[in-house]
């Protein structure tokens, strides 16, 4: 630790110096996670690279290059683009509200010519960036004060409410929790935290009672009693638990998962990929994945801790929190600990959007790692 403390504050870095500072451990861990995803997708397709395994691998390869590229650009660009990105994401969310495409009852997508984007996904990182940017220029004493909680609170509440209205309870909670975590890390006083927690609790209960959509209510009811109606709504959770449980210690073997191969598992390529993995590789497999994710998070948090600037610390930690929440929510969901909210398992679930979000997030983490000693402007303006 000391070694970094005494290091000189750097203004600029040569490309070679940056490349030399790439945290290869993080790269290897991410690659491992993606490879596990490829293996499971290969197995689910009855031992075939098509339709998903190969694409998953290719996608990861491209995003990894993108990540390294984004890691090497000057960190000031990230800082400068924090507020604009947040604003664009917020506008897109409003756009979804106004012009969005309805898919399965929820308005989450925005058609932009040939591509379809999910603004909530962009917002996850944009909020991390914007909050980190906000607290970077703030003295600790001020960060803890009530007066300076207003703007971050607004920055968090606006997207959360918009996403809630789509409706996408899972993402809204993810975004909100990430924001709250950054505010917490920035040093909000415990007194305010306590008050906020109580208010939040009351608001949450009120929302659960009055604000839920029918399908959300059904999910929660099913969650509370999944075996009541095994062929109806509780079917997914029950089948998921059967798949996991029947995996046992060592699993049914690669390509041997009956629950997934015979289609008893729902959404096995995306939200329930962890279950398919658990069935074929057992407790050893699931525990390994948990350990792998914890290693990634540990690496990320170490990077956050080593950064010499608030922006880096908070942004890297924010990405880690987002990532951790993805993992925790997804795995809790497939085990029936929380209702099914439609959150995929990062890097392992099939799907480009989430993988892109996660990889850009780790690009930011890597960038912070490379620029851990850089001097950053206090940044009172919109850009810098």
């Amino acid at each position, binding site marked *: 630790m000391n070694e970094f403390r005494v290091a000189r504050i750097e203004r600029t870095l040569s490309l070679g110096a940056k490349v030399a500072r790439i945290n290869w451990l993080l790269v290897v861990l991410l690659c491992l996670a993606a490879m596990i995803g490829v293996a499971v997708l290969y197995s689910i397709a009855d031992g075939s690279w098509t339709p998903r395994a190969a694409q998953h691998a290719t996608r990861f390869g491209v995003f990894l290059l993108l990540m390294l590229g984004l890691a090497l650009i000057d960190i000031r660009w990230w800082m400068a683009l924090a507020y604009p990105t947040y604003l664009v994401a917020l506008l897109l969310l409003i756009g979804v509200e106004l012009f969005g495409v309805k898919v399965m009852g929820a308005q989450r997508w925005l058609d932009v010519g040939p591509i379809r984007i999910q603004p909530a996904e962009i917002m996850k990182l944009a909020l991390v960036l914007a909050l980190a940017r906000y607290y970077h220029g703030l003295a600790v004493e001020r960060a803890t004060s009530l007066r300076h909680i207003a703007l971050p609170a607004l920055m968090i509440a606006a997207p959360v409410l918009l996403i809630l209205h789509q409706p996408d309870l899972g993402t809204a909670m993810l975004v909100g929790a990430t924001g709250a*975590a950054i505010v*917490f890390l920035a*040093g909000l006083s415990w007194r305010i935290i306590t008050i906020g927690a109580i208010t939040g609790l009351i608001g949450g209960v009120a929302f659960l009672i009055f604000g839920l959509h029918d399908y959300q209510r059904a999910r929660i009811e099913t969650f509370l009693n999944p075996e009541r109606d095994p062929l109806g709504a509780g079917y997914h959770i029950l089948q998921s638990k059967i798949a996991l*449980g029947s995996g046992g210690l060592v699993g049914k073997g690669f390509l041997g998962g*009956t629950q997934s191969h*015979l289609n*008893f598992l729902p959404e096995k390529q995306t939200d329930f990929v962890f279950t398919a993995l658990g069935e074929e590789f*057992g407790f050893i497999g*699931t525990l390994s994945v948990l350990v792998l994710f914890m290693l990634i*998070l540990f690496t990320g948090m170490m990077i956050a801790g080593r950064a010499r600037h608030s922006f880096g610390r908070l942004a890297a930690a924010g990405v880690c929190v987002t990532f951790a929440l993805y993992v925790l929510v997804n795995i809790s969901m497939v085990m029936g600990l929380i209702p099914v909210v439609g959150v995929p398992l990062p890097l392992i679930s099939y799907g480009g959007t989430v993988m892109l979000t996660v990889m850009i997030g780790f690009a930011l983490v890597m960038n912070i790692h490379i620029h851990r000693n850089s001097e950053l402007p206090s940044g009172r303006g919109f850009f810098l």
Partner: protein
Amino acid sequence: MARRHEDASGLFTRRALVLSGAGITAFGALAARLYKLQILESDRYRGLSDKNQFNYQLLPPSRGRILDRDGVPLAKNADNFRLLLEPEQVPDLDDLLARLSKIIPLRDDMRERIRKSLKKRSRSSAVVLAENLDWAQFAAANLHLPELPGVRPEVGELRVYPDGPSMAHVIGYVGRVPESMDTEDDPLLRHPGFRIGRTGAEKALDKKLRGHAGALKVEVSALGRVVRELPDPATSARPGDDVVLTLDQRIQNFAAGRLKGQSAAVCAIDIETGAVPVLLSTPGFDPNLFAKGISGPDYRALLEDEFKPLFNKALGGTYPPASCIKPVIALAALQQGVTDSHERVRCTGKIKLGDREFHCWKRRGHGPVNMLGAIGKSCDIYFYEMARRLGIDHIRDAVHAFGLGTNFDLGLGGGNTGLVPDQAWKRARFGTSWSQGETLIAGIGQGYLAATPIQLVVMTARLASGRMVTPYLIKGQEPPEFDDLGFSTAGLGAARAGMVAVTEAPWGTAHRMGGLGLGDLKMAGKTGTGQVRRITKIERDDRVRKNNELPWALRDHALFVTYAPADTPRYAVSVVVEHGGGGSVAAAPPARDILRELLKEDPVTLARLSVTNTTAKGPAT
């Protein structure tokens, strides 16, 4: 600046540690939960997974065939292309039926039945959607299977009765398992395609014919489609056993043809073994209709038919034995010593008993007749006299010895004991005492006496052999060696001589039909005309109406019992034609023809015939 930086960093580190601690706790909780799920509760979930993955399909066994004595199949199996429905896999029944009706025709009553059986059965057992499809329909349904969730094609068995009506009463038919039946002891009974024996041999021998169900382990997908079959020879179905009957398919059909259009019963028996080669009740019905599931109107028509096609008259129909009983009465009279074969009784056409007159069928009387003449001419007056001398108790004992009053159901069920009355019976039944007039009437086989066609053929076989011949129909149920009945050879000889005279003497009641027609083999027989109405004094004084003047239901029953060859009896035959008129006209000729067909298949008789033929031809060449 440095201080502030130091502060911020330190604060972050503290807060990050708190957050990390929370994260590690959460991950630890997940790991603990996974441990519980995958290690502690693994057995339970593995069981549930297996239940998901594997299903057992019941493999119905092939039903055993029913064969005639030469191995000709009387009941066999054909392919039944059918579609089953797994109710738990049907998301929308209406939609499914709509799709299905584009492929195979679905009548409204079929839809109704499907709905009903869906309601009745538990969701886990399949119901029949459609069966007996032709190949084109079945192939089309198979082709469209992906659009028909929950539909399972199956090649089952359809029971086929090649001879149809002529065997219907003996073989019976199979049908759906009745709702009242307890289906717990055999899962086969709950299989939607399973058919159980409902009547006749199919019912009586069901356990033997049924076989044992097998089980096929199959791997199924979440949608219930079978992904893989895992056959195991140890659990394959064991087919039912074939059953052999004593029937002769050809002669049974011959008899059916011979009595076509009549309401009649025919029984034949092998006098040496008791085997029954013909057991016919006409008109019959088509058991194939029942096997496929008979329609309401067809079934009603059968129920309402005056000729009672569903009823097995050969085993269950009771008729006054009428004059067919006379040889037995004669034998009893000799046995009891109340007459000898030479005594002549004068027949004037009627006798008086108290203030009642008893008439002979021949109004002007037969004149003096001895036993031979009395049997041959079927003189009623002679037998009134013999009955009077014997008394009802001796008549009862003799008639019992010849099988009347015994229920011969041949293991099929549906038999009848008939009725052999005596004093005790009458007192119990009517509370009045027996009158002598009733004894006289019993002497000519009328009155309360009632016998089934199978009893009549047993009686004839016992007369022909002097042994206690007992009939059997099912191979493996052969009766033990027949005991001697204990009647004297002389007495039996006299009774038989009378029966030979019936067909062979110029004055015999059945002489006109011209004998057996097999070389010089002689037949013995006895006609009977069973009165079903009372002839009033007024009618008798005027003129007794002829049968063809009466409505069908009031006409006399025509009976004939016979055996041949007269010297070495092989087969006996009884024919009852309901309301057929005189026995000699309506019953004797078909009985003779059937007997002749039976003898033509008897090797011993054939050998004798060929010997007589060559000796007859000898001098000519």
